[in-house]
């Protein structure tokens, strides 16, 4: 198996990992103030009726949120394809 990471693989790996780390930290911060039962109660699905479900929903929500924000940012700041070759800069 070759560990040949293309630009895209790198991009998605970084995106997934960083949003995961940030989500982990913010899950801790959020649930220090918010009781996960609040989330569960407002969703009101029979299957998800425990604090544990609330924690999981909160974590994955934050993760998805960070992922989408990061993905959009990457899309919007992406450099043009076929960037013209610039003349060598004199330093």
């Amino acid at each position, binding site marked *: *198996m*070759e*560990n*040949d*990471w*293309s*630009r895209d693989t*790198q991009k998605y*790996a*970084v995106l997934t*990992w*960083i949003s995961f*780390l940030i989500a982990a*930290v913010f899950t*801790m*911060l959020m*649930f*220090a*103030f918010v*009781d996960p039962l609040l989330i569960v109660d407002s969703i009101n699905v029979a299957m998800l009726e*425990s*604090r*544990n*479900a609330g*924690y*999981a929903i909160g974590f994955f929500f934050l993760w998805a949120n960070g992922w989408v924000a990061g993905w959009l940012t990457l899309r919007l700041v992406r450099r043009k394809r*076929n*960037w013209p*070759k*610039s003349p060598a800069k004199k330093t």
Partner: protein
Amino acid sequence: MAKTSGSGYEYGKLYRSEDKVYPREVKGRFATLRRVAMFVLLGVFYGGPWLIWEGRQAILFDLPARKFYIFGMTLWPQDFVYLALLLIILAVSLFFFTAIAGRLWCGYACPQTVWTEAFTWIEMAIEGDRNKRMKLDKAPWTLTKIRKKALKQFCWITLALFTGFSFVAYFTPVRPLAADLVNMEANSWTVFWLLFYGFATYVNAGFMREQVCKYMCPYARFQGAMFDHDTLIITYDEERGEPRGSRRRGSDAQAQGLGDCVDCTMCVQVCPTGIDIREGLQYECIACAACIDACDTVMDKVGSPRGLIRYSTERALEHKSYRLIRPRTIVYTGILVVLLASMVSSIALRKPAIMDIIRDRNTLYRDVGREGIENSFTVRIVNKHNVDHEYKLSVSGLEGIELRTDSRIAVAGESVVTVPVSVTVPHEHAAGGNVISFELTSIDGSDITVIEESRFRGPTESY
């Protein structure tokens, strides 16, 4: 300062394709130290949940009950400030150690390194050292290869699942959890997180390895900001080593115009991130010191002094003196001392009870005739002790202020009680918004007093 290895970057090609890194096994001082660190840290992680303290699991983050037990101390969500402080202290410590000793964290303590080390160790035990592994990967799928690969996967998956189990055991009491798992009765969320963490371990330590450090780790990218010329880094002594080249045993290297580096490439072969340290400090370097061990071994063999690759600083390489006390370290030490002191003192002075006063949001105030103006509050009392307490609630701050509800409140150990409370103030003193304070005092002999402020609202004086 940091020179990148990426001399091959071109327009239109922003990455370098890289081959799989097969780190060679290395023996030496730092390899031993790293192995010791690995066993100690993994031992702490895997053993942690099994510790018992005063009849309860010593470290248990009981999320469903929203209580954290840490060695006899019980933390509530309201104690969140300690968690925040702890995270900040850990971050500043990381800056501090990075400024002094470079990437010690990466080389010895980072979970990514530790588990990669464990997984590589399994791989080496089953598939053999570097050359054997490279050969095995190229070889056709014979029965031996299938057997070796399957055995490796089995060991990896077992270790990953056990890691997941240990992780979950910090959140679910470990003994019942083990029993539930054996009886297939475990909570589905618990099983989900066990598999989730196990899978992450398996992928991160088994496959992604150094790629995590190179591409995904934010710390690796930010470390430049924490480094200075006195930071301990792993360096190749270019002055001594160059020009590098192979030589015949016993021949006079100096006469041939060669430096001490025999160009055996052992330092490259042992590197878990696959870089060549001789090209200078690179951000991929996780400072694991494997190249130091490898080079020292070679230097011993060829009869040159050790330390061609060694822990050093940029200033030392320029033959300048080393400074431990410098603005950067003074600032980091100062911040650390202040944070640690505030954390220790606030934990020591922690109140065993918490009171929250929540104003009734629906009605600002009520005119209750002769008694005056009434405000309603919800008082939430958290008893953090594991014994029951009885409290008396009183209110002050305005002339004639009175509590209309029962002032005696009993709260069982480690529980929360919410009571509606109404307060009245005579008309003549009730105008506008005034600060009042609630005082909660224990009346069972224990010495607990909590004071919280709120606002009393009355009609505005516009008539």
